[in-house]
């Protein structure tokens, strides 16, 4: 699987880097666009010293972990949300006759390596926050990013699976994928309690960076979950990934190829 992914991604990378100036420009612009979310946080902290009970570096830590996971998933899997385009163009048929899983082929379709700019921006912010905070449970940070990446990969898989049904309004899935990415950029303590509960127990977004982040920061959960709840992130991520895999299979099995 990994071999096929790398193979296909490399093919698209070669195509994208055929125009190096344009490629470099898009990498830089990706970095700047992602920087806008950071600018919002910095402007907020130009006006206050705490947001939802968290200081600037803590918020940047939560932003950095969430963004790094999200931008990595965006780089690696976001092309899955073009399923409905492939259905309308008929190109899904040609994907399905290859001896490689459709998921891999669609995830790598038009793989766009310039998105690495956003990943770099997120990594830089996380680097800064980790250095500024002197964390004790630093070992947990890479695990957080991996779990977040898995959760977002699962979300994009759901988004793709959903498009087998929603061929008319594929943009709806953006609210889930990009919306989830935006949701976890800020400390969840700012949101309504019901929303946070729903995103803990139903759609486990709280496990991207919030609960494990509280554990790393040594902070109490405002909703009263024990501090070890953050350690459940890998389990939550794997369960979500398994469910999204089932949804994807259902989508493929219910695919109704149209036209000749």
């Amino acid at each position, binding site marked *: 699987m990994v071999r096929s992914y790398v193979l296909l991604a490399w*093919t698209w990378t070669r195509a994208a880097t055929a125009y190096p100036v344009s490629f470099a420009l898009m990498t830089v612009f990706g970095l700047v666009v992602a920087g806008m979310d950071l600018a919002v946080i910095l402007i907020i902290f130009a006006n206050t010293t705490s947001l939802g009970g968290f200081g600037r570096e803590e918020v940047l830590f939560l932003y950095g972990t969430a963004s790094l996971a999200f931008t990595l998933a965006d780089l690696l899997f976001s092309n899955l949300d073009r399923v409905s385009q492939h259905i309308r163009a*008929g190109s899904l048929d040609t994907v*399905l006759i290859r001896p*490689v899983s459709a998921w891999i082929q669609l995830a790598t379709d038009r793989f766009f390596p310039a998105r690495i700019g956003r990943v770099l921006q997120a990594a830089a912010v996380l680097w800064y926050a980790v250095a500024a905070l002197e964390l004790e449970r630093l070992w947990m940070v890479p695990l957080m990013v991996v779990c977040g990446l898995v959760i977002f990969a699962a979300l994009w898989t759901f988004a793709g699976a959903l498009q087998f049904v929603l061929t008319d309004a594929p943009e709806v899935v953006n609210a889930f994928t990009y919306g989830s990415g935006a949701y976890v950029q800020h400390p969840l303590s700012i949101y309504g309690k019901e929303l946070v509960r729903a995103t803990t127990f139903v759609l486990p977004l709280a496990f991207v960076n919030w609960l494990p982040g509280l554990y790393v920061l040594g902070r109490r959960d405002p909703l009263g979950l024990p501090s070890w709840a953050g350690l459940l992130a890998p389990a939550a991520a794997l369960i979500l990934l398994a469910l999204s895999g089932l949804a994807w299979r259902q989508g493929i099995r219910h695919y109704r*190829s149209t*036209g000749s």
Partner: protein
Amino acid sequence: MIELQGAGRSFKVKRQVVHAVQDLTFRVEPGEFVGYLGPNGAGKSTTIKMLCGILTPTSGRVRVAGLDPSRKRTTLARRIGVVFGQRTTLWWDLPLKDSFELIRLLYKVDRKLFASRLEEMVETLDLAEFLARPVRQLSLGQRMRGDLAAALLHGPDLLVLDEPTIGLDVVSKAGIRDFLQRTNAERGTTVLLTTHDLGDIERLCRRVMVIDHGRLGFDGTLEDLMAGQSSLEEVVTRLYTGSLQ
């Protein structure tokens, strides 16, 4: 090679169940060259897509090379080659030879074996002059030759062709027919071909199946289909417009 037992596929369109194909039962033995005929919307493409595992049958049983296509799609993909006349299976922006190389890697074909097959294809399909050109710049005839080569590079036992000669000029058609005949005769590749071009049928197919309104209406040799009449076109016109039995 192919075995269908009561296979059917229905769709729900505006709460009504539409049977694209129903109750299909037939066998295709290794080495056969079968033409699959039928008017537009008769269910030809649906059948082909069920054979490749693109569509899951809603009833009955489908086996291709002993495998259930919808459950073992990627395993089956290594054993069959598929060509859609209306769209390419090649990578649009990549040069043709890069598409072939990618196929070698995806299908895990041995490098030496691949090189010898490619050499043979380049020669018989006359690919040399446009091997380095991106697929989007190829003419329809060139693209179809590239698609055929791509479908055979991994040495499939079964070749499924959905209207491979559509839109081609007389010379290109003749070239492709020659190639298909040789592939079937020399390698023993089983071929299933849908087409609207009766010339394809007359030139290539020993056996013909006709499908209409999703049901198999005729299955026999070309001679039986003709039944002593002189024009295949007349026979087929009568079949398509009238009732099948």
